[in-house]
């Protein structure tokens, strides 16, 4: 049997930082403007897909870039920053192409239904919402919010991966990459689903009233990730 208490006390910092990473992922999902199914019919503001999958797409792209960076450097900050950049690029490319489709393919201007004036550009929004819809497309505030969300998600995912990878253990390099990466993916999915249940699947960004609900999801993610982190640290540290 492994020395549970010993491993836990040795790696208490890793557990806390992995938990922090999970909290960041959970918080980040609240920033990403997702309109769910209605947005795909230009019936709601935001990106026309599900919260979980979009957050996962961005976060996992960040994980790929962070892991590539981790291969060549020891700097923790650099790994985490490149995770954030990878996720931000994925999210902003997705949003700009989404805007092309809304503007050129569907023919409607971006408009938010949750705010009368865009908090960033101060543009009037309600007049540009077409009849019978809850807004459409990605006004500047949603775009910026999405970029922030992607950055936080990328940082969170990279942190989980980084602090799993540096746990002391007796494994060879490819083994530890394998187990840390799949753990990071698992923890990412758990923390992407919890906030999407919190916001009921759709949100416009940080200006949306639903954004105020984030402490609940962050608290739930804190407990869930803390449990997962303990299991992960025990599994990797015990080898």
């Amino acid at each position, binding site marked *: 049997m492994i020395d549970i208490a010993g491993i836990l006390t040795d790696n208490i910092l890793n557990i806390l930082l992995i938990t922090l990473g999970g909290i960041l992922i959970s918080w980040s999902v609240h920033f990403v403007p997702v309109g769910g199914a209605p947005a795909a019919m230009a019936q709601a503001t935001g990106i026309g897909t599900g919260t979980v999958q979009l957050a996962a797409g961005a976060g996992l792209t960040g994980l790929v870039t962070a892991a590539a960076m981790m291969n060549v450097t020891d700097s923790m900050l*650099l790994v985490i920053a490149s995770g954030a950049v990878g996720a931000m690029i994925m999210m902003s490319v997705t949003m700009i192409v989404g805007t092309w489709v809304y503007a050129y393919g569907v023919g409607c201007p971006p408009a938010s239904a949750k705010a009368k004036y865009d908090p960033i550009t101060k543009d009037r929004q309600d007049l540009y919402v077409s009849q019978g819809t809850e807004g459409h497309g990605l006004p500047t505030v949603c775009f910026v919010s999405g970029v922030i969300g992607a950055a936080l998600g990328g940082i969170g995912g990279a942190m989980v991966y980084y602090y799993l990878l540096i746990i002391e253990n007796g494994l060879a390099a490819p083994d530890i990459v394998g187990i840390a990466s799949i753990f990071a993916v698992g923890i990412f999915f758990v923390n992407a689903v919890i906030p999407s249940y919190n916001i009921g699947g759709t949100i416009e960004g940080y200006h949306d009233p639903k954004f105020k609900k984030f402490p609940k999801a962050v608290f739930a993610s804190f407990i869930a990730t803390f449990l997962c982190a303990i299991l992960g640290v025990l599994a990797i540290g015990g080898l």
Partner: protein
Amino acid sequence: MEPLTSMGVMALIGAAATIAGASEDLESDVGSQSNPNSQVQLAPQMMYPHRIFNKAISGEPPSNALMCAIGGTTASVLMSAGASVILALAIGAIIAAAIHGTYATTSYFGRSASQRRFKQPIYLDILRSHLPVIMGYAFITTFCILVVSYLMIAVLAHPFSLPLMAFIWGITVGAIGSSTGDVHYGAEREFQNVEFGSGLNAANSGNIVRRAESGLRNGMDNSWFCAKFGGPVTGLAFGMTVFLSGWITVLFDASKGDAIGWISVIAGTLIVLILTIWNRNIEVAARKAFGPYKKDEEAEVAA
């Protein structure tokens, strides 16, 4: 590695990713998948039975991740048994496409059978004609993603394994496809019967176009339409994502020192900034070109 070589590899990766993105979107349009499918699902309930495929495979990201992970796994098994890379990737993609076909079949049968009370028939000719197309697109998508993943691992020395890498890019291509190209299908193609230039009025929900240029509309007609805009831009989106996120680290190679690594981070942030400004430009142009939908009542009252 020689910077020029890695640049060439990056270009190849970008090209393969672009094809993968485009075929992913068209695959989801032929079968009608993900969010726009909610209208295809709703239509019979609103008394509009139709002849459109109903491929409800759990949303695009997981279904593409499944294809790519199966392809990646099979390819890595074949490669460790000594098969050549191209053969391994091709066979992996064939098996993935076949399994995708079973998922498409069960969802068309299952969803349609669950609409008994709305009298939605199951048309076997729709299944027979659409399934090869769906599997063909699935093959192209999987093969291209496997090429991207393989090149990143074998040439650019990424630490992840092939199945995991393919899984991650599968999730990403699905997330991008359902966020970009699907909007063209959902907001425009399904509702060509309403005036161009607005979102879908909630009152029209379920009233999808069911008649085609000739005969009754099916998924193939939809992919013909979406291949003109939605598919290619999805390809550009995925190609840009894969290319730009890799390009900055190839151009500013962090293995030559952390300072260069930080330059790559700055370069990535600059790209994001440029895209944000571009989005703002399109927003301003679209507001000007299309104008408001309503009059400003407050201003009138004030006047």
